[in-house]
């Protein structure tokens, strides 16, 4: 489990890529303020609901 990280509305993030974990679960790599973050599990599926292409 990672940490909770809040993003404000209209904040822009960069998607670096998508991959599969060792358990064959998909995850997204994000770049926010020059820091790398990973989105796993159920949050992965919510990504496109919560973010829009800028």
């Amino acid at each position, binding site marked *: 489990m990672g940490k909770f990280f809040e993003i404000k*509305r*209209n904040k822009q993030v960069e998607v670096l890529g*998508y991959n599969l974990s060792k358990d064959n679960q998909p995850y997204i790599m994000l770049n926010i303020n020059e820091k790398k973050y990973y989105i796993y599990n159920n949050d992965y599926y919510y990504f*496109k609901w*919560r*973010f829009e292409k800028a």
Partner: protein
Amino acid sequence: MKNLLPYKRYAFLSNTELIKEGSDFLQYQFGIEPFSSAAGYAFAIDPKLSYQNYQDSPYTDFYARQHGLVTNVINVMKGHRSSLGDSMYKIDNAFIEDLDLFKNFKILRMFENQKLKLDVYIAFDYDEEEYFGVYKDFNYIMKPKLESELFFDTRNTNRMNPEYRLKLSNYIYKKMEKWFIPEKGWYKCLA
């Protein structure tokens, strides 16, 4: 009088081991089918008499062999048919025919269920009518199956057999899986 035996007119016939024409006769006369007997259980037969002889047997002439050859080929075809479920021999594929009728795929809602997996509720058009469906445990280890009211529509019950349902389920699942993958680039937070 004590040892009075019931009179059976044809008792001697049933007591003897008869070769019954219906079952055993053919086996003794022509030999059993080459495919069905395991090693060591086959009868010694005169191959020239057997109409179910091996098609490559050098002991039978060409014309006699043809029967065996055709029988074996038919057996192979039958085996294939049963294992492939007739799909090879169907001229039409109902799902492929209907593919253009499925349009407007939408994800309506996603809920986290008690297993902490997602239930994904979808809607789609089939033949210009809207239907609803759900993939329960979408991101579970096992691939989810589509449950939809479409399959319970009396107009479709004959057309949409389990094969059709499985194909449709996998078709929409693949579409959704692709949709969830984000492209590289910049995204704006909506929430």
